[in-house]
């Protein structure tokens, strides 16, 4: 799986749904991405990429694209 596939899959696994136009996804834009969904997403991303987010990044993760930007800061061993 490519990085982007892994990343997208983490979203779909967290929200337990197939997501159309996933690159347009933002926090609260689907019912599944609420505060509970956000917790799932954070822990899934941390597990998939074996990282621990800083607190600021946990709150800044407000969209699919923002998440990509945030992940650039971390050493993903790619």
């Amino acid at each position, binding site marked *: 799986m490519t990085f982007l596939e892994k990343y997208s899959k983490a979203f779909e696994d967290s929200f337990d749904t197939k997501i159309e136009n996933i690159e347009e996804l933002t926090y*609260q834009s689907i019912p599944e991405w*609420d*505060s*509970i969904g*956000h917790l799932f997403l954070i822990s899934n991303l941390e597990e998939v990429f074996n990282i*621990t987010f*800083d*607190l600021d990044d*946990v*709150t800044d993760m407000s969209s699919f694209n923002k998440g990509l930007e945030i992940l650039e800061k971390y050493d993903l061993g790619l």
Partner: protein
Amino acid sequence: MLDLSFLLDKDAFSFDNIRKRAIYKELLPQLVKHHYDNCLDYKKMLDVQSYDLSISILEDIPFLPVSLFKKYELKSMLDLDVYKVLKSSGTTGQNVSKIYLDKNNAALQQKVLLKIVSDFCQITRNPMLILDTSETIKNRLNFSARSAAILGFSLFGTDKCFAFDNDFKLDLSAVNLFLEKHRGKQIMLFGFTFIVWKYLYKQLVMQGIKLDLSDCILIHGGGWKKLKDEAVSNTEFKSSLKKQTSLKNIYDYYGMAEQTGSIYLECSEGHLHCSIFSEIIIRNATDFSECNIGEIGIVQVVSLLAQSYCGHSLLTEDLGKLIGIDDCKCGRKGKYFNITGRVEKSDDRGCSDTYEFN
């Protein structure tokens, strides 16, 4: 809607009283006007008193009894913008409060909560032992104050573990495994006061188990709810837990469903602190005039976060006293206070009865 982004960039306890008053003087009348324009019930309440919307002095801003949320939908937004309905845990036989949140308000509460808590724990994120059952956060439709608090604090957790099974039996093997796995790291414990006491402390004592939680920080809140008869003082709570678990870092917080996010956390000196996002006023029970420092009265809470519902200025059913302003030894600016008890039979006779609608 108020734009609080300039406050979100500041340290949560960095404003002294003069600076804070200046900001509230400007923002509070806007907030009152916002609710007046967007919530008909709120407008009626102010109109009945011929309220002057230009009033800007903190102490003169109108306050609603917190029990009003049990009877009325005090929302300042369109129905289609309702994103979450937060229900207070409410004690037996009482109606529950319903707090209506739109997306912005929910997100704002979460941001402020993290800001306040991170000021107390220099920690960033740590393993977190949640002193509750995983059931509490399973149902997203029925969102209780407790589930909201657990979710809000959970963002601090990296690895997470729930300490109790669904019947609130301590899952000792899971807890031990979790503690062992993270030995040497600072572990954050979070739970509701009465749950920590009844289900953690009491079970440990009964089973004669001593846990080693010396590396942990416990943050607890929510008071005693249904366990008023079993309530112990904060000092006894701390010393008992310390004896049983070697837990030294224990911090209480004061907050309520009606003002989620802008909580008041206990500092190392044992005092609750107002952040830049909220304020308290202690009032005499007889004439609602402001109490002096050290005088016990009813706690009024003011929060800039309450925008999608009229919870910006509320008279609680709690008693407390102001300890001081700007000069706590912990270094935080602003007012600091203690909670001393509950207004007697507060659910039966609220000032809400004096308000007539329609």
